[in-house]
């Protein structure tokens, strides 16, 4: 039994070695791509179903609730006002003159209507400015840069070559500093790459057949890019702007938006 398992282990080990020796024959460039995502700031809009159910829960809660002091006071006020009209002798003069519940409610409503909530449509949204993180507050945004590949420039995630002696995570951190600037504060989520994409060069370059890109995922925290122009794109825009196959590889590890 033991010998058997040992043999099996040996076999799998050599199998792996074999795979590696075969696959490493054509040399590939190792690249690290960084997917920097700004998470939504504001909760997404409720769907039709969610709105309906919320309404339902609120009515049920109201039906089960007790009356509040405010409601009791409002009822008392009404009673007193009627007595006052009827010129009854039971009128409590003190109760009539003081601020009624209705007055309080009106004042509160007025204050509420004066308060201005932050606008969902920010300045960047109005101008169509894609370089700011202050846009599309309800959506996930991914940072992309323009890169020159050969003759034409393409919209890609920031990426760069792995250097000997680094781990891929270190490569990712270095590239962010080099290409985007060290003022951008981000948080890497893992030491492991979250996605993979490979493509072949049109012709062999420095003896390399193509490039294998390992994507790292990071969350945006604060700061602005200083070294290069970047765009923050929503999922839809990503789909349109990135090269098709590349986009598919990126979409593979991103959370899908349902609205």
């Amino acid at each position, binding site marked *: 039994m033991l010998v058997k398992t040992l043999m099996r282990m040996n076999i799998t080990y050599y199998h792996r070695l074999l795979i590696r020796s075969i696959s490493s024959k054509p040399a590939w460039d190792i690249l690290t791509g960084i997917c920097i995502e700004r998470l939504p700031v504001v909760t*997404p809009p409720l769907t039709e179903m969610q709105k309906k159910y919320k309404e339902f829960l609120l009515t049920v809660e109201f039906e089960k609730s007790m*009356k509040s002091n405010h409601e009791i006071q409002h009822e008392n006020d009404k009673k007193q006002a009627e007595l006052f009209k009827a010129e009854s002798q039971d009128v409590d003069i003190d109760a009539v003159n003081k601020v009624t519940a209705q007055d309080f409610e009106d004042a509160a409503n007025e204050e509420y209507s004066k308060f201005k909530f932050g606008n969902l449509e920010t300045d960047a949204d109005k101008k169509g400015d894609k370089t700011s993180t202050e846009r599309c507050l*309800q959506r996930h945004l991914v940072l992309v840069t323009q890169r020159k590949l050969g003759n034409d420039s393409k919209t890609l995630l920031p990426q760069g070559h792995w250097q000997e002696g680094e781990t891929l995570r270190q490569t990712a951190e270095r590239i962010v500093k080099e290409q985007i600037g060290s003022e951008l504060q981000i948080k890497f989520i893992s030491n492991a790459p979250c996605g993979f994409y490979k493509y072949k060069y049109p012709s062999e370059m420095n003896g390399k057949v193509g490039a294998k890109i390992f994507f790292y995922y990071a969350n945006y925290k604060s700061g602005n890019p200083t070294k290069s122009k970047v765009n923050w794109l929503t999922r839809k825009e990503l789909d349109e702007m990135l090269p098709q196959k590349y986009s598919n590889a990126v979409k593979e*590890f991103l959370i899908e938006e349902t609205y």
Partner: protein
Amino acid sequence: MSILRQFSRLSICPTVKFQLNRNISTTSALTFKITEQLWAEPMKKKKKIDPAIVKAREERRRKKIEKQIRRLEKNARQLKPIDELEVPLHLMDSLKKYKRPPVQLSVEEIEARELLQKEWARYKRDEYMNNIAQVDRIMAAQRRALDRLYEESEDLYNEAIMPDLQLLPYTISGPVATPPIKDYESPDGEYIDVSKKWDN
């Protein structure tokens, strides 16, 4: 004998020595003996106590302890009152006043509500299945990336699967219901501290 010797050592003219020199005998010259020192008083006679009194004393002591135990047990059953957990009496009295009139729902309304709840359950299930599928997809993408990395270099793979020690502590806030207002100064409210003081 020994004492005399010691004293003679201190005196100017040693008397004992002279005597010893004059007499020739095998025994000691001085034939009186000093009794050994006792350093103690003779033992007192034990007082005899009436056994009835002893019994009574014991009884009294036992009763005292029993009383203490009883007192402790009585207190153990009665918990220390916590003000916050007790419903104030004036609220208990006015409970009727605060009750809403019971709602009479029509049959259609009840039916509609039940249907809505069923529909909600289905909706949530779909949402859940969708979430699970997404997590699976993302995990598969990572697995694939790691496999490709292993093919490329085992060292890089081993580095990649190390736990990320910088990740923790991890804090995240949001999303919120309305967008934050820039440079918003929250108005000063009145703060009334109603917490009780337990100084004495």
